[in-house]
Every structure is written in structure tokens, then in C-alpha cells.
């Protein structure tokens, strides 16, 4: 799984047109990945941060430059290849986002 990280504060100020443009560029990239692409979505920057004591708006990550702004699932031969695929993202190449590459642990978790 590729966890997309970027400046959530900046994302909050995006207009619909800005967002469409970003999504379109991402779509073109994942389209080019062919069968290596499994799925993925961007996430809205507004959320809730839940702890034992409270449910707060947004939480501590909203101020950081590396909040999670989306996820992308890919097929790769190994971690090295997954990282090489992530590196080919044009938006990442421009330095506008970063990706955390994490292999999925396969368990008997009851997925829908």
C-alpha cells in the first residue's frame, strides 16, 4: 500500500477545480501502471481524531506537512519494486507529496 502524504492545510484551501486537476493527474499515472494498480482513493482532509478521552476535530496531524491524503493499492514483486513504482509518480517527482510504501500483511481478517 502506498500511503500518500502531503500538506493537509494546503489541501483544505483547494478549490474543486484544483482537486479535479490533481485527481486527473493521479488517474493518468495509475492508468499507466496497468495491472500493477489495484485500487485507491484520495481522502478528504477533514476528519476526526479519536482517543480514549475525546473525539476531536482533525487531530494533531492537520498542522503537519505530512498528513495522509490518500492511499493507493498496487501489486509489486517486492518492496524495492513497490518503492520504484511509487517514485515514478509525477506529483511526487515535483516534490508536492511523499509516499510511504508498506507491504500488506496477509491475515484471516474478515474483509468484506
Amino acid at each position: 500500500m502506498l500511503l500518500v502524504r502531503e500538506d493537509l492545510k494546503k489541501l483544505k484551501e483547494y478549490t474543486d477545480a484544483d482537486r479535479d486537476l490533481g485527481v486527473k493527474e493521479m488517474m493518468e499515472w495509475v492508468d499507466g501502471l496497468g495491472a500493477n494498480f489495484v485500487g485507491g482513493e484520495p481522502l478528504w482532509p477533514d476528519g476526526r481524531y479519536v482517543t480514549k478521552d475525546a473525539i476531536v476535530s482533525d487531530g494533531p496531524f492537520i498542522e503537519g506537512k505530512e498528513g495522509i491524503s490518500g492511499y493507493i493499492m498496487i501489486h509489486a514483486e517486492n518492496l524495492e519494486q513497490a518503492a520504484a513504482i511509487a517514485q515514478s509518480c509525477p506529483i511526487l517527482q515535483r516534490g508536492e507529496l511523499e509516499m510511504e510504501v508498506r507491504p500488506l500483511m496477509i491475515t484471516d481478517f474478515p474483509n468484506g
Partner: protein
Amino acid sequence: MYKQHFGKMVAFLLRFSKDIDLDTAEDLVQDAFAAAISHWEKQWPDNPAAWIYSVCKNKALNKLRDDKKMLRLHQAPEPEADAISYAGDFPDDEQLRLLFACAHPDLAPKVQVVITLKYVVNLKVAAIAGSLGMTIDGVDKLLLRARQRIKEEKILLVTPAPEAMQQRLPIVHKIIYLIFNEGHTSAEGKVLLREDLCEEALILTKAILDSQMGNIDTCALYALMLFNAARFKARFDENGELLDLEQQDRALWNPDLIRLGTHYFNLAKGPELSSYHFEAYIAYLHSTAASFADTNWQLIAQLYTHLLPNPFAELNYAIALYYAGERNSAFEKLFALQRSAFMNSYYLLNATLGKLYMLEGDHAQAAVYYSKTLDQTRSAAETNYIRKMLSKLNL
């Protein structure tokens, strides 16, 4: 000759001495070809390939001597004595060896494709850029980054062990599949060049089959590509405009290629089926259907379920369901895909919704979806197609 031998010679030099790096090897081979052009004007050698190899070798030796590395060369473990006393034609499996070397599992698929096109198919950077829809600058950058890894890990130098070759076979299949798909995806003005790519993919697959290194997946992949290649000529009209499968003149489909594809499809039978099998089966059903209406859409829809989960396969699945008569579930699947922000900005999803609404007689909705694709298409041919469809609507 250049096209056939450039990559092999670079690999030959890399194996010849471990003191030669990739850049030097490429320069030396370029030099040798330049020398050949001036020498051969005077006298044509008996064996041009051997001539070039021996010039390359001498140039390499000179280079090493200049670098005062002669001593180290002698101390180096014998790097394949028989390769040095090269005479005659280089075995063709050198090209296959390179193909498997490019299928390094640590490289991104796009990088694997680019270095295969460069070192195995021997395309120039401009041609690679043109056929993959990349900029020359982009290909250069990608090669630059790949070179670093190729050098560090001696990717072109080390022959994978036979077991590793078997393990890499699926990656090799994927590289070939990607090369073919790049050739198959239409783009205006590049049609010829791209058919060339499809041909290269077919040649490489045939070479694997001939070398006995292939398996039933290789047969399925070969069949799949043959079925698609058979339909090339019919994909565009006389003005070079993209045609729907429905409008294609089936008489233009190449019956020999379809027959050959069927032959390899039969050879691909086995207990464990790959995605190539299902795709080949779908292509077989399309290629052998008498008409669009006669197509076995039910079976095609069922075959697509084996290619899930993948949003692009899901889209094709929905289309097959529609033509199989299951309209409601087709629309349900498409609406589900639409909820994905990614797919919602994918022109083929909106073009499909446009087309199906048009078939349902709801031209107003069709126009909404077709118009949505206009800033989502990727080539002039696609935009022209959408404009043509929009002009057909009664609004």
C-alpha cells in the same frame, strides 16, 4: 546491424571485463560502429558482426591499458574465456539472456520496459519516448536513474541462474505485455511506430517459446497478442479515426493471425490459468464471433470476473454485462465505479456511460457524460471520437 547488436555488444563488453562500466561500454560500441562505417567503405569484412566485436574488444583493451588497469584485468577471474574468442554469429539466446536480465524484480515495470526497449530491442531514446508517450527528457531521466542501479547491481552483467530465469518468466511476460499494450493503445500520428512495438513483443515471445523457456502462460500471452494484432487494420477508418468494435469491418481482420492465435491458445491448456489465459479467451471470443451481436457476451462477462479486482477490468465487465442483456447490473457497476474519485476522472468510464445512455435512448444524459470526457481524453484521436459521438446525439 546496429539495431540487432548494440545491446548485445554492450553486454559482451560488460562481461568481458568488470573494469568497464555501462557508459564506457556504450561509448566503445558507438566508436566501433563509427570506425566500421569508414573502414567498410574500403573493404567489406567476411563477417561484419565478428569484425565489430573484435574492434570493440580491442578498443576495450586500449581503454583499460590507458586506465593503467591492465594488471587488474589479468588478475580478474576469467570472465568467460569463450566469449572473448568470439567468432561467428552471437547466439540468439544472448538477446534472451538480456531480456531476462532486464526483468530484474527490483525495478519498476515502466523501467523494465524502457531498458528492454533500449538494450534488447535496441530502440533509440527518441523512439522509446515516442512509442511510450513520454518526453525524451523523461526517458533520459528514467534511464539515468536506472543506470545507477544497473551499475550497482550489474543487472545487465549477471546471467540469472536457470531457477531465477524461471522465477523471472512472469516478469518477462509482463514486460512483453506492457510493450504490446503500448503499441496497441492508439495515438494519432504514431500508428506505424506503434505497430512496430507490437511486432517486437510478438518476436520476443516467439523467441522464448522457441528456446523452450516458455510455459503455458507464454502460449496464452502469445495467443492474446495474435488475436489483437489480427484486428489492427480494422481499428481505424480511412481518415485514421478510431472505430468502435461494433463498427469495425470484420472482413479486415487477419484470418491467418486468428488461426495462429487459436493454435497457441489450444497449446496454453493447463491446470493453472493466468490472467493471460482469461484475456486470450476473451480476445478469442471477439475474434471468432461472426458479428458484434453474435458475440458470446455472457461468457465474456463471466471471464472478466476472473480479472477482478481491478477497476479497469470492472469497467469492461460492466460493458460485457450490458451487451449480455443484464443492463441494470451493468449500470449498477458503472455507478459504483463512479463513486471512486479516481475512476470518475477516467475518460473511458464517462465515455462508456455516454454510450450506454445513448443506446438506452437517453440522449440528454449521454451528452452530459460525453461532454465530461472532453477534458479527460489523452489524445486527439480520442477527442475526435468523442466529438463524433456528440454530433450523433439528438438534443
